[in-house]
């Protein structure tokens, strides 16, 4: 599976477009991390727990997108975009979408 946020893959021809595929996940942080983050809020600096959490969630969203792409017979997802939205305080949605294509 080739993932790319370009609109094409250099040196390869797109034989078929299969439309939009997407994956999303909604995650919330847990209380322990929240308390630590509360301390960090006084001193500043990176919130490592949150960074990891969001990174993992994005991987999960990508996996879901790839699953969907595989099920419709694509071998590549192009023009990938990420999007993040906070639904309520303490939970955010991570969304990834792209175009499934078949490369020769």
């Amino acid at each position, binding site marked *: 599976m080739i993932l*790319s946020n*370009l609109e094409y893959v250099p040196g390869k021809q797109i034989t078929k477009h299969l439309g939009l595929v997407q994956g999303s996940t909604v995650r919330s942080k847990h209380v322990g991390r929240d308390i630590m983050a509360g301390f960090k*809020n006084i*001193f*500043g*600096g*990176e919130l490592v727990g949150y960074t990891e959490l*969001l990174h993992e969630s994005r991987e999960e969203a990508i996996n879901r997108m790839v699953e969907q792409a595989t099920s419709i017979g694509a071998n590549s997802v192009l023009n*990938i975009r990420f999007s993040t939205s906070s639904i309520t305080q303490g939970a*955010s949605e991570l969304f990834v979408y792209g175009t499934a294509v078949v490369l020769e």
Partner: protein
Amino acid sequence: MFELIIFLVLLFFGYFVGQYLESSHYKSIKAREKELNSIPAIATRKLPEEFEACETKLVSGNVVISVDYFKKFVAGLRILIGGRVTTFESLIDRARREAILRMKAEAAQLDANYVFNIKMETSSISKGQKDSIGSVEVLAYGTAIILK
């Protein structure tokens, strides 16, 4: 009276620890930027013609950076008179540069030569509600180009 003391202590720690963390973060950013200068990050979508045979791979980097008590306080004052909120400018600048660096570091692990079509996304995890955690997340992503 007691509340005032707590406030001043928090402000004091926020200022000194926050400033220290910020300057050491900037130092590490500048050092790593020099190191990763060999991988240019390019915002164009089209590759040059001569890159016919190359491998591509999606790379990304993200970081969540928290505000400190002092920055929050200064921004609160700023809102009364308007104008540039310099304390938050440096915060977001740090987050952006850090995210780009992490993306480049991932590209460097793949022995990539360039990163094309960089996109950035900024989101505030908590939208400045009272008693919530003020932090900003930056995600940078692009396509790493590995020339053969």
